[in-house]
């Protein structure tokens, strides 16, 4: 800032002509804000939009015609529209777009917005708002949408002037997909929708406070490469950020270069195919024993687009206690949020890994690669001793839910996109499906939103038709509880021609909560029986999922035996003109193992009731440590006691 000389300061001559703040734009095509909104979406290349109309957004809906360049998918609930857009975004890698009305329409969107925020899903939510004269008067269907969503969005706008619409939407779309992706809310007042403006394209974005870093700095890469050279027990801990950055190939290259095992979070399942011997599966609360153990015992933890979520780390202080940490993330705020890294690298995961891999190759050309044979011997011994196992036979003769998941995986086309609800079935899906492709696993990770499954599957199916000619089938693995939170979307699935395949693991209970009640709340099954698949005559069975499917013109099949299940899956795989729902009657007391109780150290991981290999310090690679199968007695961990008690009834 130049300080004026005294003379200038008192001079009567104005220094420069003052610009008028309001620029009068006369360039461009004259139209209404609503027309501009539709035109902007077209110019942004948006191909599919989800939503439900209403009064405060009617001017916009009025401008959707047969020749509009995007397809509109009419959902039955705004929450469904939001999750559908999320499923679409994850499956296609593009921004999911929703258009909903004000007030209740917008508040119904809060859950998907928060969900997208937690899982970094690119989403643009356009909501109607009352006219500016009514804002703040408690007008009909007025809600402070921007205010309500502040804490759960990446950014939000209230548009009051038609002229701003194209610029704001261009910015919103860019913000949603760039940097760390996330949801952006654009609340458009009716005044802006009906107001006149001059449309021009492209638009100049004005985002002085937004500069995501994508390129890593050189010196941290050298430091990271050096840590690899000095480590004998590295682990690549890969999260959803790697998926958003489409960095599967780079992760695989790093693993191969450094001979490191790959463990993933829930959203990163499939980033490198499960058939790759370096992949140990998911870690954490319900991760594989090998993945959790390797992370606990590693000396170098490379967090790649992962954020040290408590479902992954267990008790934070005891997480990977001996490890030095390299943390790669596009969001600087993630670095040091939960654990201080030794080498922080801010940047886009794919770009960072490309640079890091090159740096490692340079080093290896001089010094050669580190021999990790002992580390792999140890890891392989865990894998052999503690594979993903379950009881195929159940005490009451119902299907084993884990078996159903494995059978679904066995019969599925390799290109299948898998979607899940939230609960035990979600964990089993993550554990037991063989994921062979990235972007083929869609599940609510951060927020854990029941009801996510069906609409997300519809969105994924719309994305599959758009990008892959519908060649990628979509299978939803859902719980009877989760499914009922958004089952109305069966209508959208049928009418909008999204032939999703639905597997309901029907255990008649909120299984995951029941598991906790079994283990930690004295088997007091308070409010977790939902009675929708009870075999007992005198107990009501509401709803009948087969009839429910049929009511929506979908195919409904029930499977109570393995033969029925196999046949049902086969039939479902053959039907492609409408949604198919299979009601699998499964055992209600099946449990998800391994498990780390909430808030406990990952060292307490229970492989199955009574077996806690890491507490036995089973880190030898002898492979003959029989003590690992004996129940623990020297620990007060609740899971052991309760788990052991349930062994008797559930093992045979």
């Amino acid at each position, binding site marked *: 800032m130049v300080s004026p000389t005294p003379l200038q300061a008192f001079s009567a001559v104005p220094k420069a002509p003052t610009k008028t703040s309001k620029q009068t734009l006369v360039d461009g095509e004259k139209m209404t804000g609503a027309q501009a909104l539709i035109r902007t979406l077209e110019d942004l290349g948006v191909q599919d939009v989800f939503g439900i109309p209403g009064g405060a957004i009617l001017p916009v809906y009025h401008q959707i015609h047969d020749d509009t360049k995007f397809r509109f998918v009419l959902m039955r609930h705004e929450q469904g529209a939001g999750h559908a857009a999320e499923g679409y975004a994850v499956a296609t890698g593009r921004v999911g777009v929703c258009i909903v009305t004000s007030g209740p329409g917008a508040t119904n969107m809060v859950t998907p917005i928060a969900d997208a925020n937690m899982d970094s899903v690119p989403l643009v939510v356009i909501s109607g708002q009352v006219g500016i004269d009514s804002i703040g008067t408690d007008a009909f269907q007025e809600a402070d949408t921007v205010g309500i969503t502040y804490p759960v969005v990446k950014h939000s706008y209230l548009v009051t002037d038609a002229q701003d619409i194209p610029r704001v939407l261009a910015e919103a779309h860019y913000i949603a997909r760039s940097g760390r992706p996330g949801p952006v809310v654009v609340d458009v007042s009716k005044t802006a929708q009906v107001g006149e403006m001059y449309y021009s394209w492209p638009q100049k974005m004005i985002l*002085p406070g937004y500069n995501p870093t994508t390129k890593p700095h050189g010196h941290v890469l050298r430091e990271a490469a050096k840590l690899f050279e000095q480590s004998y027990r590295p682990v690549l801990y890969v999260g959803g950020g790697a998926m958003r950055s489409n960095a599967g190939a780079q992760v695989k290259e790093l693993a191969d270069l450094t001979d490191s095992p790959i463990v993933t979070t829930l959203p990163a399942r499939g980033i490198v195919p499960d058939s790759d011997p370096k992949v140990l599966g998911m870690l954490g609360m319900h991760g594989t024993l090998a993945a959790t153990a390797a992370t606990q015992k590693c000396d170098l933890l490379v967090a790649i687009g992962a954020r040290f979520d408590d479902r992954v780390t267990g008790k934070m202080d005891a997480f990977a206690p001996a490890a030095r940490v390299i943390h790669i993330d596009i969001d600087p705020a993630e670095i040091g949020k939960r654990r201080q890294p030794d080498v922080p690298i801010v940047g886009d995961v794919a770009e960072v890994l490309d640079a890091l891999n090159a740096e490692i190759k340079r080093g290896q050309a001089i010094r050669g690669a580190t021999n990790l044979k002992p580390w792999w011997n140890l890891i392989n011994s865990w894998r052999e001793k503690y594979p993903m196992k379950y009881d195929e036979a159940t005490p009451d003769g119902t299907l084993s839910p884990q078996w159903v998941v494995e059978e679904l995986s066995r019969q599925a086309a390799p290109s299948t996109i898998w979607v899940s609800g939230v609960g035990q079935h979600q964990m089993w899906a993550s554990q037991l499906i063989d994921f062979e492709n990235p972007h083929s696993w869609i599940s609510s990770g951060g927020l854990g939103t029941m009801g996510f499954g069906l609409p997300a599957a519809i969105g994924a199916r719309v994305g599959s038709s758009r990008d892959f000619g519908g060649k990628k089938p979509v299978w939803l693995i859902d719980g009877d509880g989760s499914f009922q939170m958004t089952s109305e979307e069966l209508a959208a699935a049928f009418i909008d021609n999204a032939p999703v395949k639905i597997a309901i693991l029907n255990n008649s209970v909120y299984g995951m909560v029941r598991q906790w009640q079994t283990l930690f709340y004295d088997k007091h099954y308070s409010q977790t029986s939902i009675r929708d698949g009870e075999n007992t005559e005198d107990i009501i069975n509401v709803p009948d999922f087969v009839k429910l499917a049929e009511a929506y013109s979908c195919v409904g099949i029930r499977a109570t035996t393995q033969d029925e299940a196999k046949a049902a899956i086969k039939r479902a795989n053959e039907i492609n003109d409408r949604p198919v729902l299979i009601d699998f009657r499964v055992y209600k007391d099946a449990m998800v193992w391994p498990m780390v109780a909430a808030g406990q150290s990952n060292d307490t991981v229970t492989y199955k009731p009574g077996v806690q290999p890491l507490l036995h310090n089973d880190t030898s690679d002898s492979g003959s440590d029989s003590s690992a199968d004996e129940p623990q007695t020297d620990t007060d961990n609740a899971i052991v006691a309760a788990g052991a008690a349930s062994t008797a009834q559930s093992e045979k």
Partner: protein
Amino acid sequence: MAIYPASTPHSERHTLSVLVENRPGVLARIAGLFARRAFNINSLSVSPTERPDISRVTVTADVEQVPLEQIIKQLNKLLHVLKIVDLDNTDAVERELVLIKVAANETNRSDVLEIVRLFRVRVVDVHPESLTIEATGAEGKIDALLGLLHDYGIIELVRSGAVAVTRGPHALSEKVVGSEIRGR
């Protein structure tokens, strides 16, 4: 790693200067971040700056270093936030305005006026039973003044919250490209 609540009785005082786009709703977004992280704000002031498109938020708070870093990073994620600095007390000028209504009658008025003179502050309102004093200064001076006036009985007190600038010829906004847009 995470230390919450972020503010404990022994935490060190920090002064954050935050340049933001001058738009409606900015303060709510910033305040929301502080609230969510149990960050106990000591004072907060927001006002226009030398540039019409930029406002400046000054926050003082007693807070631990680690949560402070996290909140600075989170603030940086807000798109309307243009720049943040944790002002170093030795390199910044910090001032606060205080209005103090003291119970002072004819028996002790001259004593109070003596304090007013010593501190070079001003009396802005006189009543047979009270004096209202306007004082500006750094925190230490204000605290000392209040300490002395306390014995006479403080009827009412209002503080503006601290404002601060770095010493020397540079402005925080120098490298900030303008926002041009004034609406939301």
